């Protein structure tokens, strides 16, 4: 199949960017979107043009490195899918696609489709951990976790930190991401000692990084490749409020 791509090319954070038109020819429909881009890049290298920069790593939908907008939708048209797991069979021969980087004040463009998501790291560093001393192996089962809580926590832990939620949100809010991390730890007994401190520290950091505020639009949930539920945002607000009012 053949496609027309319009790709955002931007040399670095300070240079102005623009859309450039490319043709992707003889694409095998079983290829992933990234494999298709590799074909385009190989053609560019052959012509002596710099290849399109984009982030990626595992190609299995589990690491959170990949991601860009395809026709205005984060990670493209398939639900619950990262671009590395999006396959060309979902497109039609002759389709015209517009590829752009995540756009958010807190995610400056590094080059082309690659953006700097270190703001997420700083949110995690602010409180996304537990600091119990590990010592020797504790006996499994000495801390009981109700199955329902374990499942909810596990669902939240599925967040891979890709940033699609921010990119799709009209407010550029990181509430889904931060809510997922706060839920993941706050639902487990091991996460209780620091629960109040964590909620406040992570929410404060999120605001400092320049992410917008959540107004319950719900676009984040719709594009999240890990199908994180918007409930995590409610949980984050609840934890924050509780900590602010009665926390230590």
């Amino acid at each position: 199949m053949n496609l027309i791509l319009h790709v955002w090319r931007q040399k670095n954070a300070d240079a102005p960017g623009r859309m450039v038109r490319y043709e992707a020819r003889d694409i095998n429909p079983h290829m992933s979107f990234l494999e298709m881009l590799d074909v385009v890049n190989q053609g560019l290298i052959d012509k002596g043009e710099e290849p399109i920069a984009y982030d990626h790593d595992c190609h299995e939908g589990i690491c959170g490195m990949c991601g860009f907008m395809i026709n205005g939708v984060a990670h493209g048209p398939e639900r619950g899918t990262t671009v590395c797991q999006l396959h060309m069979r979902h497109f039609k021969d002759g389709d015209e696609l517009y590829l752009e980087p995540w756009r958010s004040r807190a995610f400056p463009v590094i080059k082309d489709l690659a953006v700097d998501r270190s703001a997420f790291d700083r949110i995690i560093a602010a409180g996304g951990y537990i600091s119990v001393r590990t010592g020797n192996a504790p006996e499994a089962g000495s801390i009981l976790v109700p199955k329902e809580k374990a499942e909810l926590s596990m669902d939240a832990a599925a967040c891979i930190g890709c940033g699609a939620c921010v990119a799709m949100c009209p407010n550029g809010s990181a509430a889904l991401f931060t809510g997922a991390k706060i839920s993941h730890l706050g639902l487990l007994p091991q996460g209780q000692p620091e629960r109040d401190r964590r909620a406040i520290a992570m929410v404060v950091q999120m605001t400092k990084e320049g992410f917008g505020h959540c107004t319950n639009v719900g676009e984040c949930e719709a594009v999240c490749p890990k199908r994180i539920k918007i409930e995590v945002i409610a949980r984050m607000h609840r934890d924050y409020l509780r900590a602010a009012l009665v926390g230590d």
Partner: protein
Amino acid sequence: MSESLRNDGRIWVPKRKGDTRAPGEIPVDERDYFLERKYPAFGNLVPRDVASRNAKAVCDEGRGVGPSGYGVYLDFRSALQRLGRAVIDERYGNLFEMYADITGEDPYTAPMRIYPASHYTMGGLWVDYNLMSTVPGLYVIGEANFSDHGANRLGASALMQGLADGYFILPNTIGDYLATTQFEKIETTHAAFRSVEAEVAANTRRLLEIQGTRSVDSFHRELGKLVWEHCGMGRTAEGLKQALAKIPELREQYWKDVRVLGDGDEFNQSLEKAGRVGDFFELAELMCRDALERNESCGGHFREECQTPEGEALRNDAEYSYVSAWEFRGAGNAPALNKEPLEFEYVHPSQRSYK
């Protein structure tokens, strides 16, 4: 796909060569559940090296499935009947979804098609019991070090080692190192820093100045094919020698003809990849050298010359019961082999049998 799927999936190929019927149309008595047939005690749960080798063997015989012939079926039909869809969903939902995404086929109705790939490096960087490498103060943790691996990688071993190293060992050993070592303040004007900086800069310049005709990826792919062919699931002395002759040639070509565009002062993924692929030549060569030196079959290392009459891996404990610690002696020099004997006090190695 994840190895955990073998807990409930059954692996099979058609009995007859060139049988192109859809899997659902092949009656049960015309299927060969080859792992269950050959290893009745362990069935589909034999270790990964045994499972991989047998899958490769049936495909080499011409009984592989799918358009390429490189595939065997991983079938959940009986598990779905026995346990119901809800249980299978709970256990493997994410993996089934991943499979459906990649292939566009529904694994709930048609069996998955899988093919093994080699897990090339069973080892990693040498470390001592505290996980410190030969460079003082440089600790190597998780799968990157060699310490917890035998001749096979096992399911979830990456996770296990990451947790064990990070949870139980490092909190004690790194703290001890930091507390008991005197550190002098080192500036970036230090001679060692200067020389490494110059070396890195020269290497970067060199890669950018080659301005050859072939992309980094094309070399990467060619190297991968070479290693896949000669140092893959089955190896022979002859094949390994061929690889050892071809890798240096390819490396030489690389440093003459690779095309890395852009510059070295900003984000440049091609340049980054070029540095890595440059290193892969060394690693590939070392793997082949090590595989050639180890004149026995052991775990994932299957030397075709060394097998039992039934085609199982044949070890030679008398001569090879050691870890090969290869010492880097500078680029372009052959590495030196240090043998670290394996001593078994309580459990002694024996010929494996999964019959």
